[in-house]
């Protein structure tokens, strides 16, 4: 069983953290991963930086630009992660845009992920239907879980379609927004969380976008299996560097 699937079977609510590989410094990747695991994080999304990240707000975008300037590439990231399974055992997901994967070669990319011990991928601009027609078989061959997004605007019919294709979790975008743009959840979002929870989907949901502190984490995980923090963690890295992760994580989970 894939590490993601095993993790999802645990009874606790899950905290997943996103960071952009190559930020703040090119070679911070393994340190960040090791520190996050030590701090009690359940799962990590490693962002493969892209020049034109359409779904991301200013914080993640700026970290991507910096990471690329620092020299991050697909090859560099794979080299950094080569021995990661010797020291880190929590599920690891690579999140990136489709074009860099396409240039590396989708199959070569998936093969490399399997060799390293990556458990899943999130590719926001690879649509569900294209994945289903062209790439699903490749992902399955290399034991990778592909994670799809849903939003408050996603139709019930489409949610069921996405649920049927997924074999890990569904990434629930909390509101109609790019990353890092909202603060706090209102009634509209809570109702949306409840509505999806009531659908009793096969795949558990993990909520992302707009989670930044204990309050939003608690609100999200009242209705979902877990929550993902991205922009708030990038800001933490910018301000505090790679050292003080315990403080950041315990503040969320307190």
């Amino acid at each position: 069983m894939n590490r993601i699937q095993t993790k999802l079977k645990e009874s606790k609510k899950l905290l997943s953290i996103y960071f952009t590989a190559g930020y703040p410094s090119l070679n911070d990747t393994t340190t960040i991963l090791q520190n996050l695991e030590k701090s009690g994080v359940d799962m990590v999304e490693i962002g493969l930086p892209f020049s034109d990240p359409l779904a991301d707000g200013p914080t993640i975008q700026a970290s991507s630009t910096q990471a690329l300037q620092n020299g991050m590439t697909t090859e560099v990231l794979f080299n950094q992660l080569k021995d990661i399974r010797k020291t880190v055992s929590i599920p690891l997901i690579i999140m990136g845009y489709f074009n860099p994967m396409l240039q590396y070669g989708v199959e070569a990319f998936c093969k490399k992920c399997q060799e390293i011990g990556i458990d899943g991928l999130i590719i926001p601009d690879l649509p569900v239907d294209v994945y289903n027609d062209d790439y699903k078989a490749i992902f399955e061959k290399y034991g990778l879980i592909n994670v799809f997004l849903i939003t408050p605007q996603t139709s019930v019919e489409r949610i069921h379609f996405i649920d049927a294709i997924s074999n890990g979790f569904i990434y629930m975008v909390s509101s109609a927004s790019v990353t890092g743009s909202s603060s706090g959840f209102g009634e509209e979002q809570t109702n949306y969380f409840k509505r999806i929870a009531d659908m009793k989907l096969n795949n558990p949901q993990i909520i992302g976008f707009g989670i930044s502190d204990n309050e939003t984490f608690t609100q999200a995980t009242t209705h979902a299996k877990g929550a993902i923090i991205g922009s708030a963690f990038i800001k933490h890295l910018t301000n505090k560097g790679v050292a003080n992760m315990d403080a950041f994580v315990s503040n969320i989970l307190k």
Partner: protein
Amino acid sequence: MNYNINEKGYYGEFGGAYIPEMLYPNVEELRQNYLKVMAEPDFIKEFDQLLKDYVGRPSPLYFAKRLSEKYNTKVYLKREDLNHTGAHKINNTIGQILMAQRLGKHRIIAETGAGQHGVATATVCALMGLECIVYMGEIDIARQAPNVARMKMLGATVIPALSGSRTLKDATNEAIRDWINNPVDTHYIIGSVVGPHPYPDMVARFQSVVSEEIKWQLQEHEGKTQPDYVVACVGGGSNAAGAYYHFLQDTDVKLIAVEAAGLGVDSGESAATSVLGKEGVIHGSKTLLMQTNDGQITEPYSISAGLDYPGVGPMHAHLYKTGRAEFIAITDDQAMKAGLQLCKLEGIIPAIESSHALAVFEQKKFQPEDIVVLSLSGRGDKDLQNYIDYFEL
């Protein structure tokens, strides 16, 4: 061979809709409705009426006598430069604003590079009394001040794109992010035949009025509807798509696409996507684009702000790949000389984009009996400062 779009939104292997799920409802709504709306008699009537009375269509098909003599062939100029707002861009924005109204949208966003599409969008928003927000790279805002002022006078809000390289591709990213953040009341008017399906097809259809007119105008001039060649410059490719549209399946009509070579195709400062680009995904479309080996999108260069886009529309990628269109790259210097020559020979100051198309006559020999229709996509007023600086006028 089919050169039009197929039912899945692809031109051959290019096109599609590679968009984040957050954009899916918007794009899907448009996909399901665009053909239906465009076929409504009431839509057709209003579109045609506005093109006639407001834009000033049909634009003339002008036999350029002195230019023809100089190159010993028959050159016709399709005068899109005479349209209201000075370029072909308005054909598309008129169509899309009517589409937005019928979809019940009351907030309009757009991206712009040089500002031509921004002005054309601000114009139709003023015409219809709709809110207009234009994203423009911070660097472009600085170098295109007159167009920024025009948009403001027309009531638009111009928001600087501060991310990435702060030019057209980043303005496009910002517009897409705005659409993600405003999924219900907003329509995004894309300015070229780029972006996710159905945009390339929808924009091509709105621009297809150009080739529709060429056919009957040529019938009047020459007693036949087919030219031997249609020549147009290509950045994203909307004026070329319009000029080619009704000739795509007629392979007796040869198509020439002119790209901006900048300082030279191999100089590192170029926008010749067909030569320098590789297959990839940009702004929701699988097409040819300029990128690093690692798949990061690179910044193109051309003296023409309308041609320095790192991708090309999927229709043109397909025309290139299949050999249906011949692609020619023209440098800054070649374009500027051709632009000045048109001023002197015909009394027409062309946009620098169109000057690239005009430079083809120095690169390619046509026969005396050949009928060459060239899309004069825009007028040169906006480029005056560039011409002044270049020629030290």
